[in-house]
C-alpha cells in the first residue's frame, strides 16, 4: 500500500452512514435520523447557502476584494450536520474554515469576510451567537472548549435532566490538528474531568499538502479509546449521519456522561486557501472520486425521490443569488480598520504607554495629513 494513500475510511473502523452518495437512506443499528422531509429540506437549504457563501467569497478573493479565503467546499455536510445538532444555549469553537458552522449559528456571512479582507481579527461577539471567533492556531481551541465544558459542569449546567438548562460545547478541528499536543491534552483532560465536550474532527484528508498519513498511522477515531472516551467515525459528506452522531454525542455530554470524539471523514475539494495550488500534491482522479460523493447532490437526489416540489429548489437558487449579492455588498461596506481605535482594545483597563502611543500615532497622522503618501 502506498504509505501516502489517503485515509478514506479504513475498513477496520466502520463508518456511520445514513444516506449514500446515490441519495438512498440506509439504516444503522445505533444511529438514525428522525426528522421529516421538511427537516431534510431545511438542512439542504443550509448546505446550499454554505456553499454559496464559500463560492461567493472565493470569487471575492479572485476579484481582489479579499486577501485570502479558506474554502469549505466539500465539507458542508460535516459542518451543517454537526452545527444543526446544537441547541441555542450550546457553544461552539470553530476553526477558520467552518463557514457552515457560522451560518448555522446565525452569524451574518458578511461578518466572516473581515478577517480575510484584512479589516478584522474577529467579526462578532461570541456571546451573541454562542460561537467563539475562528481560531487560526491549529488545535488551540480544543483546550478552550475543554475549559468551557469544565465551566458548564462547575455551574451545574450539566446532567440536571432539564433540557433548557443542560448544555454542551462542540469544538471543530482538522486531521492536521490531531498532531498538535494541545489536541491530545484536550482529549485527555476532558476525559479525566468528564467535561461535556464534543470533539468534532473534520478529517478532510489534507493539512495544506500533507495527506492524513503524514499525521497518523492509526485512524484518528481510534485515539478516543486511549483517552477513555467513546469515538465514532461518520461519513462526513452525509449530513443526516453527521447530524445524528453529533446529536447523540451532545446529548451524552449534556447528560453528564462526558466527552465524545467524532471523526467525520470528508474531503477538502478546494485548495487549502486561495493561495494554495493543490494540483502540486494530489491527483485529479482522487478529486473526481470524491466529487462523486458530494454532500449536497445526495440530499437533492433524496429530496427529489421523496417528492419535494421543484419550486423549492428554484426558490433556494433565488435565495442563494440574493445571498451572493448581500455578500458582495457587505464586503465592500466593511470599514477600513482605524489604528487609533485599535489601541482602545489592547486592554480592558488602558495603560499610560498605550495612551501615549495612541496619541503619538494620532499626532503623526495629523501631521502628515494632506501630504502625498
Amino acid at each position, binding site marked *: 500500500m502506498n504509505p501516502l494513500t489517503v485515509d478514506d475510511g479504513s475498513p477496520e473502523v466502520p463508518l456511520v452512514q445514513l444516506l449514500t452518495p446515490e441519495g438512498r437512506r440506509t439504516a444503522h443499528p445505533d444511529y438514525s435520523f428522525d426528522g421529516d422531509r421538511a427537516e431534510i429540506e431545511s438542512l439542504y437549504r443550509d448546505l446550499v447557502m454554505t456553499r454559496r457563501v464559500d463560492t461567493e467569497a472565493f470569487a471575492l478573493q479572485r476579484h481582489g476584494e479579499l486577501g485570502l479565503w479558506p474554502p469549505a467546499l466539500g465539507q458542508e455536510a460535516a459542518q451543517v450536520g454537526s452545527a444543526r445538532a446544537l441547541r441555542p444555549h450550546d*457553544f461552539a469553537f470553530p476553526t477558520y474554515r467552518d463557514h457552515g458552522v457560522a451560518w448555522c449559528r446565525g452569524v451574518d456571512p458578511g461578518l466572516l469576510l473581515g478577517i480575510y479582507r484584512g479589516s478584522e*481579527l*474577529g467579526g462578532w*461577539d*461570541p*456571546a451573541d451567537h454562542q460561537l*467563539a*471567533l475562528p481560531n487560526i*492556531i491549529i488545535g*488551540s481551541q*480544543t*483546550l*478552550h*472548549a*475543554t*475549559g*468551557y*465544558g*469544565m*465551566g*458548564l459542569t*462547575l*455551574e451545574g449546567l450539566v446532567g440536571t435532566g432539564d433540557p433548557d438548562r443542560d448544555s454542551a460545547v462542540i469544538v471543530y478541528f482538522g486531521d492536521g490538528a490531531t498532531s498538535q*499536543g*494541545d489536541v491530545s*491534552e*484536550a482529549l*485527555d*483532560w476532558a476525559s*479525566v474531568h468528564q467535561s461535556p465536550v464534543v470533539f468534532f474532527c473534520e478529517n478532510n484528508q489534507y493539512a495544506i499538502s500533507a495527506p492524513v498519513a503524514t499525521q497518523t498511522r492509526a485512524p484518528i477515531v481510534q485515539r478516543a479509546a486511549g483517552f477513555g472516551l467513546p469515538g465514532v467515525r461518520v461519513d462526513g459528506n452525509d449530513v443526516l449521519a453527521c447530524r445524528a452522531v453529533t446529536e447523540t454525542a451532545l446529548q451524552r455530554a449534556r447528560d453528564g456522561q462526558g466527552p465524545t470524539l467524532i471523526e467525520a471523514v470528508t474531503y477538502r475539494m478546494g485548495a487549502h486557501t486561495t493561495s494554495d495550488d493543490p494540483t502540486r500534491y494530489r491527483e485529479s482522479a482522487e478529486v473526481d472520486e470524491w466529487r462523486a460523493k458530494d454532500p449536497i447532490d445526495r440530499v437533492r437526489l433524496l429530496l427529489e425521490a421523496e417528492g419535494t416540489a421543484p419550486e423549492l429548489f428554484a426558490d433556494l437558487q433565488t435565495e442563494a443569488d440574493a445571498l451572493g449579492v448581500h455578500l458582495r455588498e457587505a464586503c465592500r461596506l466593511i470599514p477600513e480598520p482605524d489604528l487609533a481605535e*485599535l489601541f*482602545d*482594545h*489592547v*486592554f*480592558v*483597563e488602558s*495603560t*499610560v*504607554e*498605550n495612551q501615549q502611543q495612541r496619541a503619538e500615532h494620532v499626532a503623526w497622522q495629523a501631521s502628515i495629513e494632506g501630504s502625498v503618501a
Partner: protein
Amino acid sequence: MTTMSMVKALGSGLRLAMEHDPKVLVMGEDVGRLGGVFRVTEGLQKDFGEGRVIDTPLAESAIVGTAIGLTFRGFRPVVEIQFDGFVYPAYDQIVSQVAKLHFRSKGSVRMPLVIRIPFGGGIGAIEHHSESPEAQFAMTAGLKVVACADPHDAHWMIQQAIASDDPVVFMEPKRRYWETGDVDTESASVPLFSSRVVRPGRDATVIAYGPMVRTCLDSAAAAEADGVDLEVIDLRTLSPLDLAPVVESVRRTGHAVVVHEASRTLGLGAEIAARITEECFYSLESPVQRVTGYDMPYPPSRAEHDFLPGLDRILDAVDRARAY
C-alpha cells in the same frame, strides 16, 4: 499589621480573593491536596472544594488553554505554573490566545486570568527551576506582568491581579518565599500597576523588582556604611512600566543602576535604560548601568552565586556610575 512569610501572604491573599468572589478558581499541578510544591495554596482545596481548587493533569498548555475556556463562562482562574522553566509549553496559549483574544474581539471577550509563576534562582535547584522569563511576557502586547518582592505586596498584589479584568502574569520570587515580613492586612497602600521607592536616597538610583529588591536594599545598607546614600525603587509592575518614580529619582541623583537576574540582552534593563535616556537625558551624569544575569542558559546551581547579581556587583556598578 502581622508578620508572615511570602508563601503565607500569597496563600492568605488567594483565600481572600476566593472568599470575595465565587468565580475565582485556583488550578495547576499539585495545587489541591498537596497545597502546591511551595505550599502557597495549602488548605485552599480543603476549604473551597475540588471544584474551585483543581488538581490538573501535568500539561501546562492545557492549564492555560482550559483557563481561557473558563473565562468564557465568567470564571476568574488563577493558574499556577509550578516552576518558571515549565511555562514554555503554555507559551503559545499565553501569547497567541490570552494576549490577543480581547483585542481580536474588539473588547467583547475578557481574559481576567492570573498566571502565577515562581521565578528566579538562588535556591540551589536543578535545571529549569531557576529561570527569569519575565521579559518574554513583558514584551508581549496584551499581557500585564507584575512581580512582588515582599510579603505585604504578595498578599495585596495577588488580590489586585485577580480583580484585574486584563490577564496578569504574576511573577513570584521563589527565593524570597520563606522570608518573613510585616503585612498590613488593612490596606494595600498602593495600586497594582505602580512602582514605589522602597528606600529613599540621594546619590544614585537603584532599580529592581522581585528577588533583587532585597539584594538591592542590602546593597544600600552596605553603601551607607561607606557614606553613599542609595535610593532603591521596586518596580512591582513590569508591563505596563510605571517609571514616574524612576524618572523623578534619576533627575535628582543623576545615576541609574538597573538590576535583574534575567540575562542582559533585551532584558527589562534594556527598556528601562532606554526610557531613562529619553526622560532624563539632561540629568544623567553617567550611562545607565545594568547588573544582570549573563547571556547564558541558567548555570548549574553551584555556579549560580557567580551568575546572579549580588551585593558586590551592584555596588561596583554604583561606583562605576558615580566615578564616570
